[in-house]
């Protein structure tokens, strides 16, 4: 049997409160990819991620993970394959960072089971990978935005899922933390994880992701290499801006310089 490892969306549409949010989205995510999901506000990026995480159900179309429809996955088994970091998570409960990361183990623990030494080791490792070990005993509510995002990424790792969905992981972070977080995400992909992240910064998206998916009014309007997706005519029709796309002479990174509103 050929198993199609990864996630496949076929003709996925989604209506919410009488409004069509996603229209016939086709998408295939293969193992080991780092995909940047871009598009203007309200394009449907967060909705797409929520559908993939089975938090909402598509109105039409199908989503399959490893060749099995999401409907057939229990939330528990899904969470072992798929981890999700929501956007701007409001956190008001004063748990310690270690406790927050341990919550990533939820899917792996049975109701009457206690966290084992192995779980503690996994948490330790996830915190080391995200350089958050020194924050273990601090309260999550007391951290800066950058520290918090790293702790939440550690929790996503503690979930030991193969595919990670991140919704605006770099929003509200300063440039230092943005690069720092994206470097960590990149190194996770090098270790074999698959990541899809919604991201607003087109320059960072082009630099880190090897594949960009451009969403506009609920449709995928471009999907492929950054230099193909980030073409001036796309930026004009989707974002309504005139932009200059250039390559950095030394690094070869693409940069997008918005010139004016089109």
């Amino acid at each position, binding site marked *: 049997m050929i198993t199609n490892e990864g996630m496949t969306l076929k003709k996925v549409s989604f209506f919410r409160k009488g409004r069509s949010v996603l229209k016939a989205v086709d998408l295939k995510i293969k193992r080991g990819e780092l995909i940047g999901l871009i598009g203007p506000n309200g394009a449907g990026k967060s909705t797409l991620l929520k559908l993939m995480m089975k938090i909402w159900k598509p109105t039409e179309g199908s989503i399959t993970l490893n060749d099995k429809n999401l409907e057939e996955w229990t939330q528990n088994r899904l969470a072992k394959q798929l981890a999700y970091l929501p956007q701007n998570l409001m956190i008001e409960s004063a748990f310690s960072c270690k*406790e927050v990361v341990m919550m990533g183990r*939820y899917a792996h623990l049975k109701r009457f089971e206690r966290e084992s030494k192995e779980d503690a080791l996994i948490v330790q490792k996830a915190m080391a990978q995200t350089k958050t070990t020194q924050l273990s005993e601090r309260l999550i*509510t007391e951290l800066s935005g950058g520290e918090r995002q790293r702790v939440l990424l550690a929790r996503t790792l503690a*979930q030991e899922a193969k595919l990670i969905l991140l919704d605006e992981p770099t929003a509200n972070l300063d440039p230092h933390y943005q690069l720092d977080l994206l470097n960590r995400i990149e190194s996770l992909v090098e270790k074999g994880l698959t990541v899809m992240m919604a991201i607003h910064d087109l320059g960072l998206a082009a630099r880190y992701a090897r594949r960009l998916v451009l969403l506009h009014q609920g449709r995928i309007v471009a999907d492929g290499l950054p230099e193909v997706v980030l073409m001036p005519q796309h930026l004009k029709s989707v974002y309504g801006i005139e932009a200059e796309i250039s390559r950095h002479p030394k690094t070869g990174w693409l940069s997008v310089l918005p010139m004016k509103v089109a």
Partner: protein
Amino acid sequence: MKANSVLRSAGQGGRFPAPGFILLLMTLLSGCIVLATATGAVQIPYALVTKILLNRLPFVDFSGWEKAHEIIIMTIRLPRVLLAVLVGGGLAISGATLQALFRNPMADPGVIGVSSGAALSAVIAITSGLSFHHYLILPFSAFLGALGTLFLVYAIATRQGRTPMATLLLSGIAVGIFMGSILSLILTRVPSIETFREIFFWLMGGLDGRGWRHLQIAAWPILIGSTALSFFSRDLNLLILEGEGGAAALGMEVRSVQRMLLVLASLVIGASVAFSGTIPFVGLIVPHVVRLMIGPDHRYLLIASFLAGGSLLVGADLLARTLVASEELPLGTLTSLIGVPFFLYLLNRDGRHVL
């Protein structure tokens, strides 16, 4: 939502290590039990009370006291004290559960309408004269009223298989108010002043005249429900930290967990209210006090709330029956009189407002 921040504890400063705090609460509860069992019209020395109580444990053998003292303790005072422990603990643990389930600091056993449902059907049992036939008819109708209201509220809030917690909360409050109005309407029609007094004391809450026969029945749902709730600590942590969506993404079958929590909490609330009448405040404030002390981790918060709620109600019930000689004060009023100032003190400790 700003009010939500009360769910956050006051930060690490002033926080106690949870296991130590639980040990402290256990000591406090034992102290309250001994104190309350010793105090009354006949004052019995604490040491003697402790001996008589410990004598009931296996492998413990004390002797040398008057039979009369043992009878007062074992048949009159102890069952009432233990019922106070269960009712106070049950209300507090279900309050803590509902606050996490709704992610709302205002949630308490009253919000899902369960208490009003219990009160209404209890009052119907009293005014219809049914409750005079057997001592269990009143608690049972209160209990059925509680569970019936839960299912009613749940059915109202469910659309196409989905039950949004915000809708459930609002439906619960609305149904609760509606039942309260029917209750007031019934009160205006009560024929005799005795019936009115009985209803009034039931609505104010109290444990007057409760004995082993009540305890035997109340203990099952309260203990089973509370124990079961404590197995959902991890789920409650997830729900309070980031709500339904986040909990689902971490692998929770959110809907079935929510339903389970509602049924268990209502079981405990229903049984508590059925045997004590409506006692406000315990379910709302005790979890907050405990959270301020040890933080939001439900693995400790639930058991600590149970112990603290139990201690509070034992203390309040002691005052209710001793403050004015040969008269019972309404228990529900006393819990608020003791608890509210203490809670406000905690909120303002170090000049720091948590709200």
